[in-house]
């Protein structure tokens, strides 16, 4: 009994590289002042990917429609700022609450069925929201996007400016807070039970875990985090358009997570950095056809295997 408890506790220890990451992320704010806009995008994408990792890596739910929550969060924050209150933190809270509710409702749809069913239902939910946002153009601005959003200063003092340094600090703070929260969550008994039901749902149910309640809970949490990422995007750019709900966003975040690796929580952060830099690099090289190289990269990634591609030194180990 104590052995199990020790094992779990050892697993939850802060590792050295985690601490280094926790130092490096804030330090990047001082070290890369000129890259704040790109860095802010990376932080938002990382938060989005970490939220997907919660349901994909820990609960084993394959989703092709995670952008639904990202988009709803973005629209909620933008609409709140436009019509009610321009304070960013309040808007963030509203977006998180809205997407958590939406996530809890949508989770009821993905409890049953196979992987394909889940893919289709999540994709369908995102598409429905996309269509809704397109049709309700009085509210969302339709294809033109929601314009005229002016954000208030952060904490009443720091204005969002063109250099994006406030935006980056804000995104980074939310990312680190949310990741710490997610870390606490996945090392709690709740998180461990999620992994149990990911590995074998039938067995998890038969040792007395209430599978459905856990799935609903983790889906709502992940939705809330994705909503926070969407809200950050809308607030830092002062704009929300249909693009936030588009299919490619769901696909991109999946790629990010796969590049970074699933099931250890930081995959989203590393993946987001790699993905954005790669995208920046390739699209400056061939702007029109960069999806070809992205596709080639994906195919190679899956065929060779992610672990072997990222850790070439393990090739020799396997041969031995």
């Amino acid at each position, binding site marked *: 009994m104590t052995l199990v408890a020790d094992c779990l506790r050892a697993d939850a220890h802060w590792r050295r590289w985690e601490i280094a990451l926790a130092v490096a992320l804030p330090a990047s704010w001082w070290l890369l002042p000129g890259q704040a806009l790109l860095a802010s995008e990376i932080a938002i994408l990382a938060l989005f990917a970490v939220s997907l990792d919660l349901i994909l890596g820990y609960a084993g739910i394959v989703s092709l429609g995670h952008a639904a929550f990202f988009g709803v969060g973005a629209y909620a924050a933008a609409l709140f700022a436009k019509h009610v209150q321009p304070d960013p933190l309040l808007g963030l809270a509203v977006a998180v609450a809205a997407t958590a509710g939406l996530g809890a409702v949508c989770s009821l749809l993905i409890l049953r*069925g*196979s992987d394909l069913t889940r893919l289709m239902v999540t994709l*369908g939910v995102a598409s429905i929201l996309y269509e809704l946002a397109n049709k309700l153009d009085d509210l969302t601005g339709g294809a033109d996007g929601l314009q005229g959003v002016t954000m208030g200063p952060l904490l009443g003092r720091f204005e969002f400016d063109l250099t994006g340094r406030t935006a980056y600090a804000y995104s980074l703070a939310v990312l680190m807070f949310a990741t710490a929260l997610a870390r606490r969550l996945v090392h709690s008994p709740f998180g461990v039970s999620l992994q149990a039901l990911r590995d074998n749902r039938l067995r998890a149910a038969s040792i007395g875990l209430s599978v459905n309640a856990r799935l609903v809970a983790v889906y709502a949490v992940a939705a809330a985090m994705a909503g926070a990422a969407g809200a950050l995007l809308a607030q830092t750019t002062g704009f929300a358009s249909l693009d936030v709900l588009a299919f490619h966003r769901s696909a991109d975040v999946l790629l990010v997570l*796969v590049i970074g690796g699933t099931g250890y929580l930081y995959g989203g952060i590393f993946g987001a950095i790699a993905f954005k830099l790669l995208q920046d690099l390739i699209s400056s090289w061939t702007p029109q056809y960069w*999806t*070809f190289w992205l*596709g080639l990269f994906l*195919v190679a990634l*899956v065929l060779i295997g992610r672990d072997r591609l990222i850790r070439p030194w393990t090739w020799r180990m396997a041969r031995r």
Partner: protein
Amino acid sequence: MLTLIFDGIAYGMLLFVLAVGLAVTLGLMNFINLAHGAFAMAGGYLTVLLMNRLGVPFLWCLPIAFVGVGALGALLECTLYRPMYAKPHLDQVLFSIGLVFMATAAVDYCVGSQQQIVQLPAWLLGRFDIAEVGIGKYRLFIIVVCAALTVTLQWVLARTRFGSRLRASVDDARVASGLGLDVNRLFLLTFAVGSGLAGLGGALGAEVLGLDPSFPLKFMVYFLIVVAVGGTTTLTGPLLAALLLGIADVAGKYYVPKLGAFIVYSLMIVILVWRPQGLLVRTGAQAGGR
């Protein structure tokens, strides 16, 4: 009203021919192939290029599209797809999305991103009326071709030795291979025929659905809906789903143009929540990916 239903049926039949290969792939190897639309696109472009550049008549293009894309499918199956069967669904999804991205960009690079236009022969243009129902000749042609294909497929599946082997492998690939069936070869053949059918569907549908490099992504969702809603264990399931989808889509776009796609997706979610394994499922068949 009846014209709408007629158009919907034509659309649905087309979707069925496009998606049936996907249904078999999924049922047989439990492989989620999002790149299926890329094969359809290949068929469409093959037709357009043959007709416009080489002046091959339209009717000849259809079998060429079938055979050409089928061969392409067989080639890809041998080289790229086979190692994917044992991988988790997530890897399969990423792999096939990667293929779609590559196909889209490659077509964009080679042919250009503009919409391609198929010049139909004169005898397929125009429409006539039967008892107040306006019937487009080309749509009728689509229905006839697709119905013939459906009947043939059903016959092959139900009556021939190949069909019974295929059904056995879909029900349980392990037991089937234990009984001495060469499941891999069976699958190679099926995959080739399935992608050939997609190519044929793409060639037929280039005029109706429109053809540009975003084709695989745009229609991927529709194929997946057909398969997910119809289930993978029968032919009737996807057929029913395709017809339902075709009619709902055409009627939805006509009556409530503002909510066209909305209806389709809502319908899909309702059906999937009601019957997660698809409309028609033989109980006991296939453990699925649970």
